[in-house]
């Protein structure tokens, strides 16, 4: 498979078949060091702070023999005061073969892709999408469970505003998994997202729950996300809600032996540290998997044959 110069803007641009092929390519390149991208330059253009995504792209590119140029968020924001993103992208196009873009505005990557022929890789556009994170999550599930179809997956946290969750759920639904959406009432998934998840050709079910206890026994995967303080008018209310969604060993005792626990990181206190050394924790592996996925993507869009 080859994605010659294709943009990676939205996870929805990829068919289920293509997603599978990306996951397989990631498995192939994982841990390998090659020089297939020798002579190629990747530009990291981050208008918002990022450590994980930025560094994992850098590692991925370097492990394939390519070079990386980077603009930090402070440099980028000083540019953006004087210059439009459309112009910046056309300038950076002259220095590089592909641009990784993080930008606070939704739709920024899509727009940028219209101004350059070089592939744009969306590394987060406001609260919209973050497709390489989504692929990393899918890769982690696939790698750990060998098969995605038919799994029982619980997603807990802020389902209304969280971008990671939203982007992950759609492709998961395409793989016909059963989804448990676990959140406080005020952070339930939006109506239109729910409609998409329940689309006709999807064979799994989707159920909304308010507590993890209710479903923990069923789950093969529990994906935990943060509940942000800003979403609550009163901090007392926040403490109460956040506390009741905390994942600890007591809760996991009731789970299947082979349940895996995922989290996009950074974590605050939604997973108790005692869980880190258990057989369930996969969040650090998940983060490391980001390098394999990004290598696979870079090879697919920038590789020669």
């Amino acid at each position, binding site marked *: 498979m080859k994605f010659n110069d294709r943009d990676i803007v*939205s996870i929805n641009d990829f068919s289920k078949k293509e997603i599978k092929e990306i996951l397989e390519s990631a498995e192939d390149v994982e841990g390998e060091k090659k020089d297939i991208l020798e002579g190629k330059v990747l530009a990291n253009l981050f208008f918002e702070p990022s450590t994980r995504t930025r560094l994992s792209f850098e590692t991925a590119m370097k492990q394939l023999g390519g070079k990386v140029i980077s603009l930090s968020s402070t440099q980028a924001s000083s540019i953006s005061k004087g210059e*439009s*993103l*459309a112009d910046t992208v056309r300038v950076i196009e002259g220095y590089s073969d592909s641009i990784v873009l993080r*930008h*606070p*505005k*939704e*739709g*920024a990557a*899509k*727009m940028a892709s*219209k101004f350059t022929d070089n592939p744009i890789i969306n590394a987060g*556009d*406001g*609260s*919209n*999408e973050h497709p390489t994170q989504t692929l990393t999550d899918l890769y982690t599930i696939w790698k750990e469970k060998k098969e995605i179809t038919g799994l029982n997956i619980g997603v807990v946290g802020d389902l209304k505003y969280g971008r990671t969750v939203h982007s992950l759920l759609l492709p998961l639904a395409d793989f016909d998994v059963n989804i448990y959406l676990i959140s406080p009432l005020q952070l339930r998934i939006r109506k*239109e997202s729910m409609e998409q998840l329940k689309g006709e050709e999807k064979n799994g079910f989707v159920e909304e729950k308010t507590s993890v206890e209710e479903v923990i026994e069923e789950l093969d995967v529990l994906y935990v996300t943060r509940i942000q303080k800003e979403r609550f008018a009163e901090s007392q209310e926040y403490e109460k809600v956040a506390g009741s969604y905390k994942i600890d060993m007591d809760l996991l005792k009731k789970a299947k032996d082979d349940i895996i626990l995922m989290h996009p990181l950074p974590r605050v206190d939604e997973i108790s540290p005692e869980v880190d050394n258990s057989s369930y924790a996969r969040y650090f592996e998940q983060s490391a998997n980001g390098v394999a996925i990004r290598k696979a993507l870079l090879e697919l869009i920038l590789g020669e044959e």
Partner: protein
Amino acid sequence: MSRKELRVRKIKNGTVIDHISPGYALKVIKILEIDEKSNDIVSIAMNVPSSDGEKKDIVKVEDRELESNEVDKIALIAPNATINIIEDYEVKEKYDVELPRKVKDVIKCSNNNCISNTREPVAYQFEIKQKSPVRLKCIYCKNIMEGDLSDYLL
């Protein structure tokens, strides 16, 4: 055309916008940029009973044909409207407003944080997901817009 339902006088030449969702005539007027500075001769009928027993609004503008982006805007707020082109007192041509699959620069995105609401050199662009009731999706931020869209028309 001499039936009593013709509440306002016949026009010789111009456009009749009929079957406007009740209450939306004034928004159609705004779309056509008819205001205290314009010289168009305009009649408005609101909440008149239509043949199907429902209520509708009608706007008649003399000596004017509509631009295609005006028709798109009308379709966004009154998806069942019909456009009648009048020549020499007769309906010469009549068509239903129909939204194309995509609209460009007729309505702005309601998401304040959308890249199309910045000074970037891009047009507002939407995919039409559903024509009546209207449902649009911003091609940039994927924001879905529905309901009363009149405040967002350009």
